[in-house]
C-alpha cells in the first residue's frame, strides 16, 4: 500500500554500472538496481565491501568517470528524470537538489582553511556571489552552523578543522551540504568514523532535518544495527544486485533471502553469546558473476536452478501482510530469523 501520488525524491530504475576493461570488456558491478526514497524519508543501502553501494550513489550523482564506467538505467532526482539532460544541465540540477556527506569529515574539509569560509564558499557557489553580499553570506553560514547544532557558532566560525572534534567536523560537513538547500542528502557511511554516542547525535540531527526541512536521506552503511534502528526502509545489496528490500523494522527480522539471513546470523547475539561459537562452514568463494544467483556458491539452500538462472526481484507477499518486502531468490525462506536484540540496554529501554 504505497501512497500513489507522492513523487519520490530519488527514484532509481534498473540501474547498471559496468566497468570498462581492456581485457575482459564490460564487467557489471551494479546490476539492475531499483529503489525509491520518499520525501522526508530515509532509506539505507546496506551491504559488504564490493557490493556496489558506493558505486550506486556515485552513479546517481553522476560522479563516475565516463571513460571507465558505463551507466545505464533510469535515475530521477527531485522528481526530474536525468536521462534527457546534457552533462552540463545534469550537473547543475544535481548540485541544486542533492548533496553528499562523506565518511571521513577530516578528509572532506580543507585543513588549511577556517571552517566558516568553507561553508560560505559552498553558499556562494550555489547562489552566485552577485545575489548575496558578504555579510549576508556570513549570516547564512552562521545560521547553518546553528541549524546543525554547533554551539558558539560565532566562535567556531574561525576554527580550523583540526581544532574541532570528529562530531563537530561532521556537523560542519553537514552544514556545507545544507548550503544548497538540497532536497536530498546522500551519506556514505556518515558515522562510521565516529563514536557511538556521537553517531546517535548525528542521526538525531538527520531526523531533525527530515522533520523540519523535508530533506530525504539515502544512507550507505555496512552497519546493520544502525540501518535497522534509525531509517525507514532498507535495501540489501549483494554483488551489485538488490537481493532484499523491506521496511527497516522488518527487513532483518523477516529476512527471506539466505544471504540476508546469514548476514544477520553473523552478528553476535547477546541473548545467547555461546551460539556465536558454533563452527560454521566458511565462505567458500567470492560472489559468482554471470549466470545464476550470485549467492548460489555460498547458499545452504541452493539448487541447480539457482546456478543457472538469475532470480528476479519480486514482491514476496501478495496478500498484503508484508507489502514492501522485495526479495531476489528462487527459494525464499519463510520463517522469521531468530535473533534477539543486540544489546541489553535496549531490552531494558523498552519500558
Amino acid at each position: 500500500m504505497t501512497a500513489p501520488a507522492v513523487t519520490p525524491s530519488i527514484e532509481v530504475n534498473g540501474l547498471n554500472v559496468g566497468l570498462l576493461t581492456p581485457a575482459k570488456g564490460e564487467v557489471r558491478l551494479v546490476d539492475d538496481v531499483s529503489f525509491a526514497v520518499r520525501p522526508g524519508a530515509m532509506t539505507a543501502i546496506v551491504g559488504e565491501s564490493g557490493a556496489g553501494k558506493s558505486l550506486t550513489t556515485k552513479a546517481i550523482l553522476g560522479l563516475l568517470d565516463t571513460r571507465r564506467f558505463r551507466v545505464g538505467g533510469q535515475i530521477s532526482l527531485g522528481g526530474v528524470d536525468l536521462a534527457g539532460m546534457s552533462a552540463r544541465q545534469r550537473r547543475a540540477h544535481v548540485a541544486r537538489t542533492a548533496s553528499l556527506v562523506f565518511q571521513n569529515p577530516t578528509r572532506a574539509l580543507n585543513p588549511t582553511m577556517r571552517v566558516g569560509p568553507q561553508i560560505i564558499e559552498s553558499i556562494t557557489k550555489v547562489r552566485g556571489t552577485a545575489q548575496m553580499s558578504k555579510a549576508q553570506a556570513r549570516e547564512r553560514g552562521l545560521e547553518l552552523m546553528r541549524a546543525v547544532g554547533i554551539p558558539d557558532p560565532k566562535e567556531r566560525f574561525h576554527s580550523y578543522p583540526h581544532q574541532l572534534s570528529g562530531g563537530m567536523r561532521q556537523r560542519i560537513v553537514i552544514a556545507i551540504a545544507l548550503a544548497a538547500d538540497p532536497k536530498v542528502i546522500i551519506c556514505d557511511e556518515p558515522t562510521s568514523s565516529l563514536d557511538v554516542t556521537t553517531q546517535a547525535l548525528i542521526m538525531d540531527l538527520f531526523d531533525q532535518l527530515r522533520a523540519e526541512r523535508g530533506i530525504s536521506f539515502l544512507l550507505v552503511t555496512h552497519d546493520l544495527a544502525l540501518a535497522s534502528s534509525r531509517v525507514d526502509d532498507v535495501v540489501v545489496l549483494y554483488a551489485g544486485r538488490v537481493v532484499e528490500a523491506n521496511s527497516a523494522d522488518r527487513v532483518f527480522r523477516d529476512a527471506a533471502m539466505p544471504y540476508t539471513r546469514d548476514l544477520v546470523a553473523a552478528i553476535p547475539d547477546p541473548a545467547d553469546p555461546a551460539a556465536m561459537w558454533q563452527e560454521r562452514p566458511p565462505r567458500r568463494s567470492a560472489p559468482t558473476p554471470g549466470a545464476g544467483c550470485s549467492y548460489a556458491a555460498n547458499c545452504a539452500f541452493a539448487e541447480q536452478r539457482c546456478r543457472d538462472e538469475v532470480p528476479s526481484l519480486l514482491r514476496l507477499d501478495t496478500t498484503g501482510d508484508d507489502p514492501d518486502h522485495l526479495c531476489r531468490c528462487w527459494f525464499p525462506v519463510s520463517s522469521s530469523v531468530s535473533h534477539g536484540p543486540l544489546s541489553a540496554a535496549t531490552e531494558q529501554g523498552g519500558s
Partner: protein
Amino acid sequence: MTDTPRTGDDPLLLCEDIVQEFRVRRRGAFGSATVSAVSHVSVSVARGQTYAIVGETGSGKSTFARSVIGAPPPRSGRILVAGQTISGRGRRASRARGRLVQMVFQDPMSAMDPQWSVEQIVAEPLRAQGGAGGRQRRARVAEALDMVGISPARFASRKPTELSGGQAQRVAIARALVVRPRLVILDEPVTALDVSVQAEILRLLWRLRRELGLTYLLISHDLAVVRSLADQVGTMYLGRLCETGRTEDVFTAPKHPYTAALLSAIPSIGGRADASGDGRIRLRGEPPSPLNPPSGCRFRTRCQYAQDVCGTQAPPLAAAADGHAVACHFPLTAGTAAATAAAG
C-alpha cells in the same frame, strides 16, 4: 592490590595504578602542558579470560593498552604478566614484554610492510627476539599460520596486497602468536572487516583462546563484540576507569551513568532509537579536553546526576562483593535506571 577487583585466583595480567602522561607544547603560549591520558588505572585479568575496555575516542583506552606493550611504558605504576614485571624501561623488561605480550591491530593492512611476504611478516617477532635458527623459524611460522587457518604452502610467499581483509587479519594474528605469548592485546580486531568476516575472526579468536590458554585484553567500541568475547569489562572516561565487572553484570545493570549512556547509544537490530527517545540517555556536550580535565569526577560536566560533591571529590572505584566496581558518588540502581528510561 587492596582495592583491585580480582577475577580469579591467578591473575595473568596485573596492572597497578597505571599513570600515563604526555607533555605537549602549547601552541602560541609559553611552556608546556601535561595531558593526563591514563590516570591511576588498576586492572587484573585471570588466566584464560578476556578483559575488554570500552570508551569513547580520547578515553585513554588505546593509550592504556599501548602502555602494556611498552609503547611507551607507563609513567608510573606496575604491570605484571605471569608474575613478571614488564613495566620497566630497561632492556630486561622490554625482552620480557616481547616474549609475553603481543598485539593485534585494527587495520591489518597498514600494520604490515607491503613489500614483505607473509612468511617474513609472521617471522619478524621471532627474528626480533633472536635465538631461533632458519629452519626452526620456518617451522614456527608454519605452525602459527596453521593455527589461524592459513595454508602455509599457499600463502607463505604472498604479499599483503594479495590477501583479503579477513586473510590479512588472520596473518596478523599468526604474527602475534608465533612467539607463543601469554597475553594478546586486541585493539579493535574486527572493526575494519565486513560483518560476515568479523564473525569468522571472532570465532577464530575464541577458539585460539581456548586451545592455547591465551588471555586477551580487548579494546573495542563495538559492544556486540565485547559482549560476545569478554568475560570482564571496564569503561574508561578521560583516562579513568569508571566501572568494571563481569560483562553480563555491567551490560544488564550498569551502575555508572557514563556506562549507561554508552550502552543506550548503541543501535540494535529490531530496536528503534529515534530522537524521540525510548529510554536513550543522551550525553550533554562533548568530552572536555584531557589537558584540563574537570576537578573531582571527570564525567560530572556531562552527567545528569552531578551534585556539588562530584566537583570536589573524585569518587574512588568501590567494588561490591560480586566484583562489580563503580567510581561514582551516586551509582545507578535498578530504580534510577528505570526512572531515566521512563523519563526519556
